[in-house]
C-alpha cells in the first residue's frame, strides 16, 4: 500500500461507499481501469461518482473536457484531476 497517496486512499473509500461496493477500498489498484474489464464500473456509476466528487471536492466533472476520458481511466488519474480542479 506504500504507493497509494492519502488522496487516492480517500477517493478509493469514496468510490466503494458511493457505489455500495462489497470490496475493501485497499483492493482498488491505483492504475487499474475503473470501467469495463477493470473494476467494472459503467455510466450510471460515473454519474453517481461525479456527484460525490462534486460534493466532497467541489469539482464538477464535464465530458467535453479534453481530460475527461483520462479522468476516469484509473483511480490515479481521477485523483490527479481532483487535485487540479478541486475547490474544497
Amino acid at each position: 500500500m506504500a504507493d497509494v497517496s492519502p488522496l487516492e486512499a480517500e477517493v478509493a473509500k469514496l468510490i466503494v461507499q458511493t457505489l455500495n461496493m462489497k470490496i475493501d477500498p485497499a483492493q482498488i489498484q491505483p492504475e487499474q481501469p475503473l470501467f469495463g474489464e477493470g473494476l467494472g464500473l459503467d455510466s450510471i456509476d460515473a454519474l453517481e461518482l461525479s456527484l460525490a466528487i462534486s460534493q466532497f471536492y467541489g469539482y464538477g466533472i464535464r465530458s467535453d473536457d479534453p481530460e475527461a476520458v483520462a479522468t476516469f481511466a484509473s483511480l490515479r488519474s481521477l485523483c490527479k484531476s481532483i487535485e487540479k480542479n478541486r475547490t474544497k
Partner: protein
Amino acid sequence: MSFMNTAALLGPYHPDRVLAWGNGHPITYRRFLSEVATLADQLPEKPTVINLADDRYRFLVGLAAAMVRGQTTLLPPSRAPRALAAIAKEYNNSYCLADSQDTVEELHTYQIPKGEWSSVHNMSVPQIPVDHTAVVAFTSGSTGIPRPNPKTWGSLVAVARSTGVRLGLKTSDHMTVVATVPHQHMYGLEATIMLPIQHGMAFHVGRPLFPEDVRLALANVPSPRLLVTTPLHVRACATAPTRLPPMEFILSATAPLPVSLAKQAETLFQTSVYEVYGFTEAGSLATRRTVADETWHVLDGITLYQKSDRCYLQAPYLRESVSFPDAVSLQGPHRFVLHGRGGDIVNIGGHRVSLEDLNQKLNEIEGVQDGVFLLPDENGTSVTRLMAIVVAPGKSAEQILSTLRDVIDPVFLPRPLHLVANLPRNETGKLTREALLRLAHKLHEQDRHGS
C-alpha cells in the same frame, strides 16, 4: 389501408428553422431534407438497417433516409457485441449505419456523412406510407431471444402528435430539446426525434451525462428549452450544485419519479416536471404532472379496459390490444394508477430487462451448473443493482463476469456475483425470493467478516 395513405416526415415545414444544434452550429430543416435525399440515394438495396449513430442528428438523417427507401431501422436492445450479433443473424440481409468506428460483426457498415460541406438543395417533404414498418424495437423476452416489436410510421406519428397535444406544444414556440436519453430506445426515439420533427422543434445532437454537461448543453441552445431525461438525471442535477438555464419543462420517463424529487426539481429549476409512461410494446401512452397527480392520464385515442385480472389498452394505431407489463388499477377508460413494476421485469437506471432472460444467459455459460439473478430491496436513493448467486465449481467470479459482459448490457452485470455450493431450492425445485434474500444476507455478512 391503401398505399396512398401517407404521413409527412415533418409536421410543419419551416425550411429556415433550426432542426439541430451541434456544438453551437445550427442545422436547418432545409439542410436536413437535402442530406436525407443525398444519403437515401447512396444506401444499399436492403430491407433492414442497424443505425448506431451516436449523434442524434445523424441518427435521424439515417432513419429518415432509410424510410425514404422503404427500409426498416432495427433498434437493438443493447450495444453488447453478442446482442448486436444476434440481431444481425436474425435479420441477415441488413447493413449498418454509423458515425464512428462502431460496427456490427458480419455487416457492411456505411458512414453517415457529416454533410457540412455539401450543397443544400430545395427538397419537398417526403411522404411516408403510414403502414410502413419504420423501426423494430426489441424487448427482453422470457425466452432469452429478443422479441421484435415492429412500429409503423403511422403509430410513431400518432404518438408524437397526441403527446404534443397533451404537453401543449405549439409549433410557434420552436422549443429545443436537450436529452440525456439515447435515441435508439423507444422513449428516446419518441421524445427526442419524433416529437421535435412533428412539431417543428429543434434538438441538441449530444447526450449529456454529467450535471455539468447538462448545464452546458442547455446553455448552448436558445430558449425555450425542454429537458428530456430520467429520474436518475433529475436526481443528479438536483443534487449537484449546478444551476441549470431556464427550461419550459422537464420530461422524465423509464422509471417512477418520486414526488419529493419532482417537487425539489420544480422549485430548484423553476419549471414543471412531467412524466411519461410507456413500454416498448405500446409506446408512450400516458402522462402526469408528478407533483399534482398520482393518476396517469392516457393520451388521446387510447382506451383502457380490464379482463379478468389483467389490464389492457387499445389504440387506433395498435393492431391488437396490449396488456400492461406492470401492476396498474384502472380509474375508468382513460386514467390509471401505477402500483409497481411487473415481477419479472427489472429496471436499472432506466434500462429494462427480464430476470428470466438474464437467468437463461447466466445458465448458458459453460461451467455454470445453476445460477440466479436477484434484485435486492431498494436501499434508498442510489440505483439498486442486481446481484447473482452462482454454482460453478472450478470457475471464478471474474471468468463468469467476463463472459456475461459479452452478452448483457453492462448495467445488468451482477455486483456482487457470489459463488456457492448450491442454491436454496425448495423440495419442488423452486427458488423463492425470501430464501434468496436470506442467502444473500448471509453471504454479505461472511464477506464483511471474512476478509
